[in-house]
């Protein structure tokens, strides 16, 4: 099954495209740059779709596995693997990443005018990094991809961002690095702890998980405190990335200053790296600790849900509002994971995709209006429906998806998460459900202020409605928003074996109730 | 009676320290550079001496590589000094201190 190197292709095709753009496109051929960038993204998208089509939904194992020795040190006593694979947990994140990349590139055609070559190169390098994060099964490899993602994003915000971009991008990178440095320490510590058992320094996730399953933590080789500290180091890195309250303050800055495509990728994919890290690494590697800390994580998630929604409501900058809404929505994802039952975890995994689509589409839409009016202030708009009805309809569907209207994707995810949370603890779900109410408050507030009412600014009277390229960028997102909402089972079904195994590993609520 | 290897090593050490002193005390970029060459030479001497002592040619091979690298380094280094001299009009290393914190 793995001889084709499909995953490697998915990971490295964007990098090849980036190289092609950076090195081989002649000067003054910016159309080639754009075409090559989009072509690369589409090829990658096609590959991920092929991956999904060939994925075996009945298996809990990693599929499309590629496992090669990569670096060997100290006479083979330390091995670093090139080890990638996909299971139900990461399955949907790959097409999501590819799709958002393609959409972001398509959008950028009309939006980016300076240093295009560098821009598309960085976007594609970023894609390679993200694909790597979602597929790496060697902790060291994972860490490398994790950090690789930062660099292009740093430049994307820092070079193509708006006024305060330097502050925002430095804050983003330093904050994330602060967390991931601790994670690196925890990764190395973990590998050292395992040396007596494996006789070598290994970062192989399956070996680590086996060790944990066969009672590494119970064996008494490390103190409980050490285990907790390592768990917290992982959690901190992921919590900053999610971002979980109160580690979220980099997000509004980064979103507001980033170019549109940067926001789309940031919200759509990068945030998921945090929750993905939770479910892929933190939870199965530290089962007891995650059980023990689940209430705290759930608590922070709930605070984030309510707090993010309330703060979003007070924002006057549209991008800032959506950024805080992300804090709220990602809180749901963490809550579902903390519930540690099949409904909650499946809901979270689905909601990761949902949030990527909805918030990605929202940022895209805001970017389209920003390109026309060059402002993100909500008060600069009003009455837009009359001028740009097609835009208004797209925005409406996406906004409704974001506020969790049944029939659209947001509801499917939130419903599973909340029902899972309710099963774990009635109060969690009670409080979090109130966040859904607040979601309607700020989203309709935004929608009403932008699209309803009289046209107050003369500039808005002559706005052009969406052009074909913009509609083309939005249609796949909206189609998926509806499809996931109408038939979420299609998407949750392949996750089930992996989710079941995960819960078995962490000892969560696994047995059926009756 | 052959000279004991310690003597060679000691000589190497003395030359190395003298080179180091040159780097630390002089301000003329060229002299500092020459002092660095002196230090490299001192190390080469220990290599050769130990190669003889251990009856192995590897030490000599290392010296050979050091010389090659030193040659390249001299070319670049002198070019740098000339470039700095052109822009700053001086060969005093203390005049190039823009990296002050």
């Amino acid at each position: 099954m793995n001889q084709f190197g499909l995953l490697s292709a998915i990971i490295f095709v964007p990098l090849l495209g980036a190289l092609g753009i950076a090195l081989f496109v002649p000067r003054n051929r910016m159309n080639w740059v754009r075409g090559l960038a989009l072509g690369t993204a589409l090829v990658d998208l096609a590959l991920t779709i092929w991956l999904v089509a060939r994925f075996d939904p009945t298996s809990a194992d990693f599929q499309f596995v590629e496992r090669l020795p990569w670096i060997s040190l100290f006479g083979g006593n330390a091995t670093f693997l090139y080890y990638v694979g996909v299971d139900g947990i990461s399955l949907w994140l790959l097409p999501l990443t590819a799709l958002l990349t393609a959409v972001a590139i398509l959008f950028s055609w009309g939006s980016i005018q300076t240093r295009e070559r560098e821009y598309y190169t960085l976007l594609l390098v970023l894609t390679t990094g993200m694909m790597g994060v979602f597929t790496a099964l060697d902790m060291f490899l994972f860490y490398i991809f994790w950090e690789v993602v930062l660099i292009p994003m740093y430049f994307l915000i820092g070079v193509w961002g708006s006024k305060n971009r330097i502050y925002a991008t430095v804050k983003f990178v330093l904050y994330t690095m602060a967390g991931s440095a601790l994670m690196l320490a925890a990764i190395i510590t973990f590998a050292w702890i395992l040396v007596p058992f494996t006789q070598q320094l290994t970062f192989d996730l399956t070996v680590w998980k086996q060790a944990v399953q066969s009672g590494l933590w119970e064996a008494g080789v490390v103190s409980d405190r050490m285990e907790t500290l390592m768990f917290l180091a992982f959690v901190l890195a992921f919590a900053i990335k999610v971002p979980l309250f109160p580690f979220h303050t980099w997000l509004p800055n980064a979103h507001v200053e980033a170019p549109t495509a940067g926001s789309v990728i940031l919200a759509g994919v990068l945030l998921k790296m945090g929750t993905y890290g939770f479910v892929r690494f933190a939870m199965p590697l530290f089962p007891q600790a995650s059980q023990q800390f689940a209430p705290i994580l759930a608590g922070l998630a709930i605070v984030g849900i309510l707090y993010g929604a309330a703060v979003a409501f007070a924002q006057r900058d549209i991008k800032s509002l959506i950024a805080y809404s992300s804090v709220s929505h990602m809180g749901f994802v963490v809550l579902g994971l903390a519930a540690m039952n099949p409904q909650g975890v499946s809901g979270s995994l689905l909601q990761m995709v949902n949030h990527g689509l909805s918030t990605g589409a929202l940022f895209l839409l805001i970017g389209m209006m920003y390109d026309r009016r060059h402002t993100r202030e909500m008060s600069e708009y009003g009455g837009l429906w009359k001028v740009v009805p097609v835009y208004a309809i797209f925005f409406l569907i996406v906004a409704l998806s974001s506020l969790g209207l049944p029939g659209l994707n947001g509801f499917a995810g939130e419903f599973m998460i909340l029902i899972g949370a309710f099963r774990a603890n009635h109060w969690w779900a009670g409080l979090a459900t109130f966040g859904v109410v607040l979601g309607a408050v700020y989203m309709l507030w935004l929608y009403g202020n932008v699209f309803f009412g009289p046209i107050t600014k003369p500039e808005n009277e002559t706005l052009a409605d969406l052009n074909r390229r913009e509609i083309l960028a939005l249609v796949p997102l909206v189609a998926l928003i509806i499809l996931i909402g109408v038939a979420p089972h299609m998407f949750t079904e392949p996750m089930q074996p992996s989710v079941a195994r995960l819960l078995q590993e962490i000892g969560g609520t696994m047995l059926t109730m009756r | 009676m052959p000279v004991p290897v310690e003597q060679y090593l000691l000589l190497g050490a003395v030359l190395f320290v003298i080179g180091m002193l040159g780097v630390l005390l002089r301000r003329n970029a060229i002299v500092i550079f020459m002092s660095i060459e002196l230090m490299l030479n001192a190390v080469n001497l220990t290599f050769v001496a130990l190669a003889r002592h251990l009856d192995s040619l590897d030490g000599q091979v290392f010296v050979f590589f050091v010389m090659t690298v030193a040659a390249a380094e001299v070319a670049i280094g002198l070019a740098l000094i000339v470039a700095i001299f052109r822009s700053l009009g001086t060969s005093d290393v203390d005049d190039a201190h823009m990296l002050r914190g």
Partner: protein
Amino acid sequence: MSGAELFFYVLAVLAITSALAMIFTPRPVYAVLFMVVNFVAVALLYLQLEAPFLAAVQVLVYAGAIMVLFLFVVMLMGPAPAPLWEHIPAQRPLALLFAVGLLGALATAIRKGAFTPLTGTMSSAIATAGGQSQALAEHLYNRYLLPFELTSLILLVGIVGAVVLARLPRQKNPTTD
């Protein structure tokens, strides 16, 4: 004192003296010349250490080519009178202190190292190869082939780098007049 010892000590004194002279002479041209003396002395010591090839290279490359380069640069820049005062606080005393300390540490290390007295001349490899230089060549072209080839790359980069750095800055608009 055997001839070998005499040879060694004379050269050692010469090397140390020329090195000290090199770092203390105020005029760079003298420094270059003292350095040549030093390198030649070291080259002779290589001969004594049964490394005739290296001795030859030392004289050719160092005392020959590199020194000429140094001289060129010194001439190019002209005399630069070095100020005598030291303006970095405590640079001189600390430098001396560290130098003495390092020398002491190295000497102690050499003392402590238990070197068995030399038994004879370098034997096995040279004997089979039929000569010192041949032996070195075989070593270089077999075991160290890849690093050897890489040195050529280093030299190439060195050449390119030197050319780029030393070249005069390009005129901004050579055709406008």
